């Protein structure tokens, strides 16, 4: 497998471009609740605004997700990170990396940006405490020279926060 940081620099394949155009069209008609796609002409990087769901610890807070697509999207997973400042959450590192299985091992090409966004919001909404992962400092230090979260060997925390 090509390394994601390298593949994200590679141009999208024809299949990937077609699929992303379809996803974008679908998004415009039917955006997931709480998300806003910031329009650019870069199909390979989406910047998405997330609003914390009302009645949760993140109500009235706004964050930004950055989604980068590899050449062979959707066969390969997109790289999804929060643009710092990232939400204070036990599965989100201060550099914006997110510990969520569907972004790595459990990715399936039948998933979409929209379904990923919904999973991330549900992860935020179910949080009961605003804190960083226990190994935040060590992890972030290890990622210093621009390592992608897709190069991390994740072991996934319990689904319930």
């Amino acid at each position, binding site marked *: 497998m090509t390394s994601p940081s390298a593949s994200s620099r590679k141009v999208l394949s024809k*299949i990937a471009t077609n699929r992303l155009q379809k996803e974008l069209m679908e998004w415009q008609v039917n955006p997931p609740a709480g998300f806003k796609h910031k329009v650019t002409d870069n199909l390979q990087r989406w910047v998405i605004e997330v609003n914390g769901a009302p009645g949760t610890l993140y109500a009235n807070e706004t964050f930004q997700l950055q989604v980068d697509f590899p050449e062979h999207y959707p066969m390969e997973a997109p790289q999804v990170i929060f643009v710092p400042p990232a939400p204070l959450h036990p599965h989100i590192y201060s550099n914006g990396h997110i510990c969520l299985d569907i972004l790595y091992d459990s990715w*399936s090409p039948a998933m979409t940006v929209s379904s990923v966004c919904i999973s991330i919001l549900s992860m935020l909404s179910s949080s009961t405490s605003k804190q960083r992962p226990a190994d935040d400092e060590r992890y972030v230090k290890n990622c210093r020279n621009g390592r992608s979260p897709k190069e991390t060997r994740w072991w996934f925390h319990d689904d319930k926060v």
Partner: protein
Amino acid sequence: MDSEDDMHDANDVESVDDDFYSGETAMESDDGDAADYEFIDNDSDEDDDPVSHRSQNYTILNEADIHLRQEDNIKKISSILSISSDEAAILLRHYNWSVSKVNDEWFANEEKVRRIVGLLEESRALPRGKELTCGICFEVYTCDKMSSAACGHPFCVTCWQGYISTAINDGPGCLMLRCPDPSCGAAIGQDMIIKLVSHDDREKYERYFLRSFVEDNRKTKWCPAPGCDYAVDFIVGGGTFDVTCRCSYSFCWNCTEEAHRPVDCDTVSKWIRKNSAESENMNWILANSKPCPKCKRPIEKNQGCMHITCTPPCKFEFCWLCLGAWSDHGERTGGFYACNRYEAAKQEGVYDDTEKRREMAKNSLERYTHFYERWATNQSSRQKALADLQQMQNIHLEKLSDKQCQPESQLKFITEAWLQIVECRRVLKWTYAYGYYLPAHEHAKRQLFEYLQGEAESGLERLHQCAEKELYSYLNVDGPSKDFNEFRMKLAGLTSVTRNYFENLVRALENGLSDVDARGGTSRTGGSRGLGAGSSKNSRNKGAAPPAARSRNIDDSGHWSCEYCTFANVRSANVCQMCQHRR
């Protein structure tokens, strides 16, 4: 006064003799004379040979065999559970190719197994005649361009190909492929995979499939020899773990190290770790160096003089013993080879701790070096013997057959001798690891061990010498030698004698040297505790051989078998030609 010691020995026997070798203990432990009896009886050369006649508890498999077994298991499960062979393969892979596990789980709770593995009870076909949207590329296709697993989730052929090929190139996870729909866990059968992928990917997939049968299966392992493609199927329980592959490499099935009988896996792994240079280096530095009192770099002393000059740029001159500046030293402190200041301080107990540690480190290092050198020597000696054996079979035997006018079938005794040498070098090598870990306070065991090892070793040296040097003189002659038959007798005799020595050694070590207790028991009634090495030779000579063994002492051809080493001597000889033991 000995009772405590004896208790100790008895306890240790149990702990050394782990269940790995327990198969052997039962037959040995009936009475104290068992060892002597076995010894004399061994010339029968029948099924009691523990090295070569053990019933084989393993099978060597080549690629075709592996395929066959895999297919066989799949067929079996498919017919017992009345499912397709694709489904049977998925089940077997999930339960690590254990037919019985699949059976048990399935009949305990079929529904649960189906859910876990992703096998649907009924497969759903694609809706007929309609246009469908592919769940990956979101394009609309007619149904003939679509495909689905048993769940009926439709994806276009191109997307399936991309999905499967990505999985195959990601690794063996492709053997557990599921439907891409995130809400669905339906397993994807081999049929579909093979139908859709490229030739290269298909080969990769089939490779993973075959490898899985060996690697995920608790009963099989690949032979660890470099470049060897055989696998070994092992029946766990009973017998040793030693396995000899068809490539001729022998290894331990349990730990996959080179075969190490009679030493157990733990000792081997301890020893191998020990040999990894680093830990020993630390001891070496501790034993042979001290930090320079000025710059603190470790200084190594290699000559007798106590006057040390640190390396540049420091160049500090000091006394090795007291670490004081050399300028304070001279004739009055005892000259170059002693130091009064140190002696005085030692009297007061100032240096005790560090010195004691250093001494201990030094001793333990010397002890380790002793065993390591012998271990390594036998290792290289074995390598050499293997090469010699090969050369013998490829070149020398033919030449010898020519020179001595002997059919090659009559020269088998030479190959046998070399095979014995190779095997003995291996055993001997591991006995040095065994010896290293044999506790120093177990005096009786140590003595017995050293005695048996010594006997075996000198037997082997005689055999090796004979096979190497004497054989050579029969190779480099112009015509047949008159005494070739004598040479045959001698080499064959040495081979069998050496085999016996090593069988004794192996058996004793596998029993945790428990013979010590048996002997101890006999000698205690005699009121003395003179057991172990020195006396056992005599006690053997006097030891009453069972009548059966006695009567067999002279065979049909009029040879008499030496009581001590079993060598078949000619009738006229009064002294054994092998061991000089009197008839």
